[in-house]
């Protein structure tokens, strides 16, 4: 179940003063089971990009292939695609509408045509996966805290059993504790279910610890694509487009410059600490 984009272009409001070339000739392939981070500055086209993955936006030109099939083909089952590629929007809590949490999470499975019992089963499983406490199942979603609302919204997508989970800035507006909790939960999900996870963010720090591949977007173009170590080795270029490598990258580079025998590959604090200890023992 791989997703591939081939030479995708997207232009907003063509022919008016608001015309904007949001995606420029983007090609990429994401294999099943990967944990990918898409990173870019505000307006770099990352949100536009992910809306192409489940056919919410139609590329001005180019192809989007899901499982080898072009989703723009006549008669392609978009509904099926959308239940396989689950998309969690930015501030997903703003889409909650039901009277209680459980019913809101049931909305997705219900649209898939499942029976009431099956819906509830899916909903309970999904809420459990995101670590939402059972005692609040019957509460109004509007009375929950920000972090809890977000869990409910993410569960609303998970209840549809997607094969690919796309999250647009899932940590925006959360405090550091809520942020870490959500990210840990997502990583846990990825490990448990083996689904493809695509995480969109503008913070390197956030995703460096979790993902196995980073795609950097800049002004609608794919700028870098590779494993975190490789992407962070271009930290000078990243700075030029208003992004930054994680702070440990800078620490390691500084240490090396001052004559310490450390490798600059470390991307997480843990790795950095090990590397520094190693250099002292040698």
């Amino acid at each position: 179940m791989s997703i591939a984009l081939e030479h995708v272009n997207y232009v907003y409001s063509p022919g008016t003063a608001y015309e904007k070339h949001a995606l420029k000739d983007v090609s990429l392939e994401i294999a099943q089971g990967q944990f990918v981070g898409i990173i870019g500055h505000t307006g770099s086209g990352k949100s536009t990009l992910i809306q192409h993955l489940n056919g919410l936006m139609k590329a001005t030109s180019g192809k989007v292939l899901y499982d080898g099939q072009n989703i723009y083909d006549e008669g392609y089952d978009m509904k099926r695609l959308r239940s396989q590629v689950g998309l969690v929007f930015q501030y997903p809590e703003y889409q909650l509408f039901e009277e209680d949490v459980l019913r809101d999470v049931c909305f997705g499975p219900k649209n898939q045509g499942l029976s009431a019992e099956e819906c509830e089963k899916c909903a309970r499983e999904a809420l459990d996966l995101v670590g939402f406490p059972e005692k609040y199942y019957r509460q109004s979603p509007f009375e929950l805290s920000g972090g809890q609302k977000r869990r409910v919204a993410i569960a609303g997508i998970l209840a549809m059993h997607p094969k690919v989970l796309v999250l647009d800035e899932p940590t925006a507006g959360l405090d550091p504790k809520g942020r870490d909790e959500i990210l840990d939960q997502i990583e846990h999900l990825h490990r448990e279910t083996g689904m493809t996870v695509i995480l969109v963010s503008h913070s390197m720090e956030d995703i460096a610890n979790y993902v196995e591949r980073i795609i950097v977007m800049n002004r609608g173009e794919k700028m870098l694509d590779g494993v975190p170590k490789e992407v962070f080795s271009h930290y000078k270029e990243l700075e030029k487009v208003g992004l930054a490598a994680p702070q440990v990258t800078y620490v390691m580079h500084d240490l090396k410059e001052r004559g310490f025998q450390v490798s600059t590959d470390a991307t997480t604090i843990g790795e950095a600490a090990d590397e520094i200890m190693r250099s002292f023992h040698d």
Partner: protein
Amino acid sequence: MIRDITIGQYYPAESPIHRLDPRVKIVCTLLFLVSLFIQNSLPGYVIATIFLGCVISMSRVPVKYIVKGLKPIVILLMFTVVMNLFLTRGGDTLVHFWIFTITEEGLRTSVFMAVRLIYLVMGSSIMTFTTSPNGLTDGLEKLLRPLNKINVPVHEVAMMMSIALRFIPILLEETDKIMKAQIARGADFESGNIIQRAKAMTPILVPLFVSAFRRANDLAMAMEARCYNGGEGRTKMKPLRYKAQDRWAYVITVIYMIVIFAVGRFVPFKLWIF
């Protein structure tokens, strides 16, 4: 999809019309609307068309954009045309079929009514396309200032209007976002009968209302934090002042009014040939 709605929106561009004082645009738009109703003859409409055409081409707003603004009135337009076509009687009968009769007068009225409605919307769209919401409010406030003497809260009304205008695109964008989010959850807004469709709107309307209230609350808070307390003693950073171009705009519009009035009055009514 929903973002295609352009009525009442500002279209940024560099043009003589954009640079005019908002008061001029409001008054002249009103005069233009009046002009559509004080005459009802072919020459009158020709003059109105020329005038509107000149203004549109000067404004540098794409015609496509203005035509798009007509979309919301299509149903009203069709209704008017059909009603006038079949119900107005007079002159020779052109078509007679079962209970339907189309007369010369009916055809005339329905065509003129349609043109009138279209020009009405186009004329007022040109004003909103070329005037920023802030400009519009400032202009309106200054024009209506005399009403303050009879205790009409002019500033408040103007402020409410500008907020309402400003929120149209915000709420449209919000609707678009919520719709997409629900489509991503498998919602279906396009199939089913009218009741099913109305029911399918709940997942959009509830979050939309919640968000509208939240935004209203935030805005009120932000205004209060900046010590906003109404129009009393409030000064402007850029006070409105008439310039030469504004006087010319008035002169041209008044000449247009006189011409169209004269034409409606003195040119023989029936220049319409069937």
